């Protein structure tokens, strides 16, 4: 193409000739794009500087070191008081986001796989029942689910004095769910070390057993040995260190419970709503993934004499997983991003702490939003990176 357009002689001026040359044109377009983008960025930057100057604000992250002066009622991992800094509030928010995201992903996966399998049930009634639930839940905004569950917990459950009591140690009330908290004595680090060592041992043992099986065909009862080592070693360590564990049981004192672990209603509402909402999408993905494995594969496995369980384990699930992983990853990302709706019910995640109260108190819109955006970008990148790695690991190896 380039050669032809250059050899056309005569009347056209050099500019149109340049434009008709494909390579030249692509260079021109790209240079123009870069110029426009940088011009826009420069313009925005100038506007930002001018605007900030006009109202006398400066761009700095110094505010992170000032006392936050607001309370966060739910901070399970690190100490936080209203005298802590904004930075600490931000960290609490990020940890809370991660907590609800991880818990949500676990529960959503379990529920999603369960419902996806039920949806494939030959039992018409079960099948329809699950279908109705899925369709209704999927087509209603997740914010409404969150508000609804929160409303149920706050208005329908009884106050602590009349809390639902399970075996005198679990209490369900409108102030949250109170459960016994394990209290470890300092020596317990030995148990943790033993546990980690045994897991590492099992990891290498499995690799070795796989290698032996590939080379000699000898099969070890890998599962039982691994389970035995992990449970056994940890139990021995537990007994040897003198059982350094006691439970702090929640007790009713005055108007609320003392001791134990308090799971706040905001967390429960957000966790449950996000989980069952996302699990409906996961159920459809699982169903599609299992249906994508053609029935011939199952029949072939049966012809080879594999049992039903072995067929599922060795033939159907590995192939279904390949189809399931990529959309599953994007559901995990959606769940994490939807956890930002926490602000609607007052669960203190990163949007509610940094992007909410800190923003209101300091007026640092730019800086706080940068923190919030970066947090989510990093979480998204980690999740999609992990899922890409897992996807590559399970992908079909083609020559």
């Amino acid at each position, binding site marked *: 193409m380039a050669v032809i357009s250059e050899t056309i002689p005569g009347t056209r001026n050099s500019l149109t000739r340049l434009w008709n040359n494909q390579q030249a044109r*692509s260079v021109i*377009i*790209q240079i123009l*794009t*870069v110029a426009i*983008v940088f011009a826009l960025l420069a313009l*925005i930057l100038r*506007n*930002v500087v*001018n*605007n*900030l100057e*006009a109202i006398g604000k400066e761009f700095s992250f110094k505010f992170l070191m000032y006392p936050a002066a607001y309370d966060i009622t739910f901070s399970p991992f690190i100490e936080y008081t209203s005298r802590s800094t904004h930075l600490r509030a931000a960290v609490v928010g990020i940890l809370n986001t991660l907590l609800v995201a991880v818990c949500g992903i676990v529960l959503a996966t379990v529920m999603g796989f369960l419902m996806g399998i039920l949806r494939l*049930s*030959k*039992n*018409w*009634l*079960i099948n329809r*029942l699950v279908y109705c639930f899925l*369709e*209704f839940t*999927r*087509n*209603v*905004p*997740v*914010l*409404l689910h969150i*508000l*609804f569950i929160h*409303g149920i917990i706050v*208005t329908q459950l009884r106050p602590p004095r009349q809390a639902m009591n399970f075996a005198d140690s679990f209490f369900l009330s409108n102030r949250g769910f109170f459960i016994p908290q394990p209290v470890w004595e300092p020596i317990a680090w030995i148990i943790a070390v033993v546990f980690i060592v045994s897991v590492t041992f099992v990891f290498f043992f499995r690799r070795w057993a796989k290698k032996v099986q590939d080379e000699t065909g000898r099969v070890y009862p890998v599962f039982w040995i691994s389970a035995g080592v992990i449970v056994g070693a940890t139990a021995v360590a537990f007994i040897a260190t003198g059982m350094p564990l006691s439970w702090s049981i929640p007790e009713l004192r005055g108007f609320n419970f003392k001791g134990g672990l308090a799971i706040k209603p905001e967390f429960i509402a957000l966790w449950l709503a996000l989980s069952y909402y996302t699990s409906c999408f996961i159920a459809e993905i699982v169903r599609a993934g299992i249906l994508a494995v053609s029935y011939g594969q199952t029949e072939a496995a049966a012809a080879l004499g594999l049992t039903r369980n072995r067929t599922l384990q060795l033939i159907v699930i590995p192939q279904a997983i390949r189809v399931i992983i990529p959309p599953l990853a994007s559901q995990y*990302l959606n769940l994490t*991003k*939807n956890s*930002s*709706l926490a*602000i*609607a019910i007052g669960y203190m995640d990163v*949007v509610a702490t940094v*992007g909410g109260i800190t*923003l209101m108190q300091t007026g640092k*819109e*730019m800086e706080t*939003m940068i923190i*919030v*955006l970066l947090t*989510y*970008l990093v979480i*998204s*990148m980690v999740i999609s990176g992990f899922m890409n790695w897992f996807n590559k690991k399970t992908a079909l190896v083609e020559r």
Partner: protein
Amino acid sequence: MAEATETYKVGQHPDLPPPRSEVGVIGWVKYNLLSTPFNVIMTLLAIWFLWSIIPPIFEWAVLDSVWTAESRKACWAKMEVPEGAACWAFIKDRIGLFIYGFYPADLRWRVNLSFVLMVLAIVSVLYENMPGRKFGLWYAVAFPFITGWLLVGGLGLTHVDTDQFGGIMLTFIIGITGISFSLPIGILLALGRRSKLPVIRVLCVLIIEFIRGVPLIALLFIASTMLNYFLPPGTAFDLLLRVLIMVTVFSSAYIAEVIRGGLQGIPNGQYEAADSLGLTYTKAHLLIILPQALKISIPGIVNTFIGLYKDTTLVLIIGMLDPLGVGRASLADAVWAGLAREVYIFVAVFFFICCFSMSRYSLWLEKRLSTEN
């Protein structure tokens, strides 16, 4: 017994109907509900579940419900058991707020007219067999601008501030604007991401991945608190407009990814065929590539639209009153407070109807466009 003893020559036996236990209702029940012991248990569990859940809900929502009352107390006074049934009188009392938000009551005909225009526009886009569809499509393109003028006012109509918009009307405004503008922008972004020019590709990848990596609520916060910093000093524009821009940008990134999937599904032969016909980039894409790519991405596109439509509820967090926001505000009213269930169910049913019909339409369209036999 006479028939049983009758004898036939080999090959002459008439076809017998299948045993009664294998066909019809009995056969269906046998195979679909009671095939194995485990299935029997599941069926019984399901029946028990339905039995324990449907009659109480039906009684609560329909049989015992109260439709006319002045307040929550009056509502409960009419029931056999106070708080024992739905008080739809609340929804009835606030229905104006749920539909129009705080739009001035004497100007509501403009909203009603917009609803009619909206239905016309939707019909002319969705039904191919409509007479004069070409005109209808041009109308659909003009529709957002006509309605915008009708709702906001100016040019002869009384001006209405957009902060008075609310309720279902606001959901429709955000949803339809987002849907109609995010598709073309999404297509452009998807084409950009597959462009051979590295600068454009990198730019599109950056835009798409950034937007997909952050939650919509963060973008809405940016729209409500700091977008003005990016603009020349003194320019302040409407919050609703800023929200519309953010929602559109947000869903275009998702649409772009869906369409990129569709584009990747087009075999290279199609591009080569277009090239060998001498079609330019634009013509090749408009005539050959995009029609096929869009067709295979319909389910994904509609799913994104449904997601966008549901996400319109998020505006309540930055203080706009969509149906959910109206509901929450009404719950704060002392006369009606405490009727949260009614509000949530009403809003849920509204969203369910909209989203479910969208997904049904997409299924129908997929089937109609399918060229497989």
